[in-house]
């Protein structure tokens, strides 16, 4: 199935979720759904339609690759968090609560960090104008 998310690939999301996420249940279809939800959330939170500006690494002609990875960072952190949260005890059922919470907190912090930057209208202008 083609990856539906625009900004982060499934591989990037899986890397963010890290080892021992429940890969049996969290399949690519689900990751795609998570990606679309994450993109909608990011667009709404930043009040800017990034999906119009950035249509994916293969097709985009309006935003520079020097800056669009920030969108992928935000998206993959959020999706990785949801993937991990699908089964907090991990695929092997042995992930401790402390490890789970640590990993969730890291992803949450990454996401909020990226969003704090993306919400800045000066950053939005900078990203739009970055040389392609």
């Amino acid at each position, binding site marked *: 199935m083609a990856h539906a998310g625009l900004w982060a690939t499934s591989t990037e999301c899986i890397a963010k979720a890290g080892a021992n996420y429940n890969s049996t249940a969290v399949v690519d279809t689900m990751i795609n759904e998570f990606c679309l939800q994450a993109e909608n959330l990011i667009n*709404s*939170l930043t*009040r800017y339609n990034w999906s119009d500006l950035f249509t994916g690494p293969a097709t985009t002609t309006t935003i520079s690759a020097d800056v669009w990875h920030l969108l992928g960072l935000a998206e993959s952190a959020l999706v990785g968090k949801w993937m991990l949260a699908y089964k907090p005890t991990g695929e092997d059922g042995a992930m401790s609560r402390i490890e789970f919470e640590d990993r969730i907190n890291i992803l949450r*912090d990454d996401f*909020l*960090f990226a*969003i*704090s*930057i993306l*919400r*800045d*209208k*000066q*950053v939005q202008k900078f990203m739009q104008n970055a040389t392609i």
Partner: protein
Amino acid sequence: MAHDFIKFPELTNNQLQQHIVSPHPQITMDIFVKVVKVVDGDTIRVEWDERDFDFPVRFLGINAPEMNEGGEDAKEYLRNVIEGEEVLLKIDPKQRVGKYGRLLAKIISLGMDMGDAMMRIGLATSFEGRNEGKIPDLNKTLRMEQWF
């Protein structure tokens, strides 16, 4: 002595207990307001439907550098993100009013705590950590004048 409501629109908790009559509603719980101006990295001016004037709000729990100490970036960030926007003021009933009589609140914009956001990207520090890294004023710390 009568309270100067023009200079200090907020009554402290002590003053509220003394039943001082306020010409405008006092803020004791969370409210939605519109940000009309960013004063500096940790103070904004807001409009509230229940008052016919705008008033200052100091971010609770964070400290941004003063304008002459590099606080321009923090002010600029806030201007870019929340100026003109509606935000939620989350009031801590125990810490409603701060130094200089300003209302203290956590400022929530689109579900995000803006104080946390500013700390996360390095534009502000926690209020407790505001003096970390500063060279202490030995005259003040040791009160050297007392020896002379």
